[in-house]
C-alpha cells in the first residue's frame, strides 16, 4: 500500500508531462484541422452568402436543398464514376509498372523518375498539354486512334467521353505515386520468401506473384487504393482548366461543385454543406483503410 502511494506521485507527474508534450500537437491539430472543419460545419447550418453583412441560422435547409438539387446528384454520381474508373486503373497500371521497373536493370532510376514526373508537376501546365492531346483534329490521341482505325471523338467536348478523358488524365497523374508506393512494397518483401517458394516447388512468374508478391503487397495495396481514392475524390484542377464541369454537367464533380457554389455562385453556406458531404466521404475512405490495414497488419 505504501508503495502504491509512493508511485502515484510520479505517475501523475508523468501523465502531466505527457499532456504537456502532446499539447502543441493538440493545439495545432485543432487550429489547422479540426477547427476549420467545425467552422465549415457550423457555416453549413446558416444561410450566409459570400460578402453578406447578416447571417441567420438555417438549420438543415442547405442539406434539404442539396437533397433536391439535381446538380449535386449529378456531381456525386460523376465523382463516383470517376473514382470507380480511375482507381482500379491506377492501381493495376501502377502495379504493373512497379513490377516491370523492378525487373529492368540499369535504367531503373530513369523509369522511376519518368513515371513519377506527373505526380510532381503542376497539373495546370500539364492540363494545357492534355488539352492539346485531346484536340479533336490535330490532337495526338485522335491521330493514334485514326491510325489504328478506331473511332475518334472530341473527347473533352463530348458529354459521353469527357469524364473518361479526365479520368485518363487522373490515372496518368497518379500512376507514378501508385508505382512508387508499390515499389517500396516490393522492396519490403524478403527475398527468402521467393526462395522458400522455389524450394517448395513454385518458381513460375504467376505462382511467385500469387503466392508471395500479391499477398505481401496487401498493406501497400490498401494504402495505394486509399491514397488514389482520396486523390481521385479531390479531382478539381483538370475539371476547372479543361471542361469547367461541362459539357452539360457531364464532368461536374464534387469539389468543382463546391468551389462553384461557394465562390463563383457566392453560396458560401451551401458550399459548406457540400464540403461536409465531401469530408464525410473522405473520412469514410480513411476509416475503411484503417480498418483494413488493422486487419491485415498481422504479418510478421
Amino acid at each position, binding site marked *: 500500500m505504501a508503495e502504491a502511494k509512493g508511485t502515484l506521485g510520479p505517475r501523475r507527474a508523468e501523465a502531466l508531462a505527457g499532456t504537456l508534450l502532446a499539447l502543441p500537437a493538440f493545439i495545432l491539430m485543432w487550429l489547422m484541422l479540426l477547427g476549420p472543419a467545425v467552422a465549415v460545419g457550423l457555416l453549413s447550418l446558416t444561410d450566409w452568402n459570400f*460578402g453578406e453583412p447578416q447571417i441567420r441560422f438555417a438549420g438543415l435547409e442547405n442539406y434539404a436543398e442539396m437533397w433536391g438539387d439535381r446538380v449535386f446528384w449529378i456531381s456525386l454520381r460523376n465523382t463516383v464514376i470517376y473514382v470507380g474508373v480511375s482507381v482500379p486503373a491506377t492501381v493495376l497500371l501502377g502495379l504493373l509498372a512497379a513490377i516491370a521497373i523492378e525487373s529492368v536493370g540499369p535504367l531503373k532510376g530513369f523509369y522511376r523518375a519518368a513515371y513519377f514526373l506527373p505526380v510532381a508537376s503542376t497539373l495546370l501546365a500539364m492540363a494545357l498539354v492534355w488539352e492539346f492531346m485531346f484536340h479533336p483534329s490535330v490532337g495526338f490521341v485522335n491521330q493514334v486512334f485514326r491510325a489504328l482505325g478506331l473511332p475518334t471523338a472530341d473527347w473533352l467536348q463530348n458529354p459521353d467521353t469527357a469524364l473518361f478523358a479526365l479520368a485518363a488524365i487522373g490515372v496518368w497523374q497518379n500512376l507514378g505515386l501508385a508505382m512508387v508506393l508499390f515499389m517500396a512494397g516490393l522492396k519490403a518483401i524478403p527475398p527468402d520468401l521467393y526462395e522458400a517458394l522455389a524450394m517448395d516447388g513454385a518458381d513460375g512468374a504467376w505462382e511467385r506473384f500469387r503466392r508471395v508478391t500479391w499477398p505481401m503487397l496487401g498493406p501497400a495495396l490498401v494504402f495505394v487504393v486509399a491514397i488514389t481514392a482520396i486523390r481521385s475524390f479531390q479531382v478539381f484542377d483538370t475539371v476547372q482548366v479543361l471542361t469547367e464541369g461541362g459539357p452539360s454537367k457531364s464532368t461536374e464533380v464534387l469539389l468543382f461543385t463546391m468551389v462553384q457554389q461557394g465562390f463563383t*455562385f457566392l453560396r458560401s453556406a451551401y458550399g459548406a454543406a457540400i464540403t461536409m458531404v465531401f469530408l464525410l466521404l473522405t473520412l469514410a475512405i480513411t476509416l475503411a483503410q484503417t480498418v483494413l490495414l488493422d486487419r491485415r497488419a498481422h504479418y510478421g
Partner: protein
Amino acid sequence: MHRRTLLASPLALATPALAQTAPTEISMQYSIPELFRGLMEDVASAFMRANPSIRITIRAPEPDYEAILQRNLRDAVTRQLPDVAFHGLNRQRTLLEREIPVDLKPFMAADPRIAEQGYSESLLSLGQVGSSQTGIGFALSTPILYYNVEHLRRAGGNPENLPSSWAEVAALARAIHGTAENLNGMFYDWTITGNWAWQALVFSHGGTMLTADERQVAMGQEPGQRAIAALRMLVDEGRMPDMRPNAAIADFFAGRLGISMQSTAQLGRYNREIGGRFPLVCGRYPLSAPNARLPAGGNVAMMFTRDAAKQAAAWEFIKFATGPVGATMMVNATGYMPASTIPAQREEMLGRFYRENPNHLVTFRQQDVITGWYAFPGQNALRITDTINDHLQSVVARRAEPQAALTRMAADVQALLPRR
C-alpha cells in the same frame, strides 16, 4: 438602407474647394489587366496631375470580373474595401444586395458642374439598380459581328451591305462554310459570362429575362422562343460548330472562321491578333423586333468608401475617369465606348478617331438600343446563369430541341428565383 441616408448628409463637403486642404489618399482597384493596366495607370497619373491634393494608389488588379467581385466581397467582410473600384455591369446588383456601393445620385445632384460630364441618360442607366446610381459607366461594350472580308467576298457577300437579320447571317455563314475545307461559317459565342449573349438574343427579339416585377420568368415567351430558334438556326442552317469559344476565336484569327459574334471590347485584340492578314469589318448585331434592345457589357466605376473626405476625392476621380478626358484615353486604348457623349462630338478628342476607325463606330451607333446587363435577383443569381448556359449548350450541341430546352430552362430558372 440606413447607412446610405446617413452618408448623404456630409455632401456639402464634396466640392473642389476641399482640394486646397490636406492631401487625400484613395485606393482604386480594377480587373482584366491585359486590357486595362496601361490605361488605368495613365488615367490615375493624369488625374493626379490635374488634382495634386489627391493621391491615387492602385491595388493589384484582379484577372476578371468574377475575381474582383470575390476579392471585394472578401474585403467587405474584412473591412479592407478599396475606395473606388471598377466592376462588371451585371455585378452591381450583387454588390448592392450586400450594401457595399455608395449611391452616387446625391453626389451628382450636389455637383454644379455635372453637365460638363456629358453623361447621356441611356448610358447613365447602365449604372442604375432600382432607384440608386450604383456606378457610372467607364468602358461600355455591345455585341457586334466580326466578318472576315476575304471569306465574305468569296461567299458572295458585300462588306458595304452586311446582313441585318439572323436568317441572312446564317445563309452567309453557310455559303462561307461551303467555299473551303476546314473552314467554318460562323461562331456565335453563347458562353460569354453572365448570359450576355443569350440576353442579347432575347432582348434583340424584344423580350426580357423576367417580368417587370421580377417574380416570373419571361424568357420563355414568344420573343424568347424566336431567340432560341434563331440560335438553333445558326447551328442547323449556318453550320455553326459546337466548339469551345477560345478555339473558335483562334480559328477566326487564323482565317478558318468567317463570322464571329463577340463583344466590341475584343476589337483591339482582334485587330492586334489578325495583324492585317485579312481585312476585318464589323457589323451591327441584327435587331429582330421593333422594340429590340441590346445589353451593354463592360464596367462601371463604383464608390465604396464611407469616409466623407475620401468620398469627395473619390467622386472627383470617378468624374475624371468617366468624363471627356478619361473617355478619350479609354477609347484610344480599347474597343469600348464611354458613357460620356462629348469626346465623339469634338474633333480634337475622338471625332477623327471614329472617322478613321469605322469598326469602332459600330458600337457607338448601337447606343440607341442599349440597355442594362441584366442580373438575376436573389441568392441564386449566379446559379441561374449557369443553368441557362447548360440548356444553351444542349441546344447548340443538338442534344435537345430548342423549344423543349427553352421550356425546361424557364422552369429551372423559375425554381431558382427567390420565393416572395
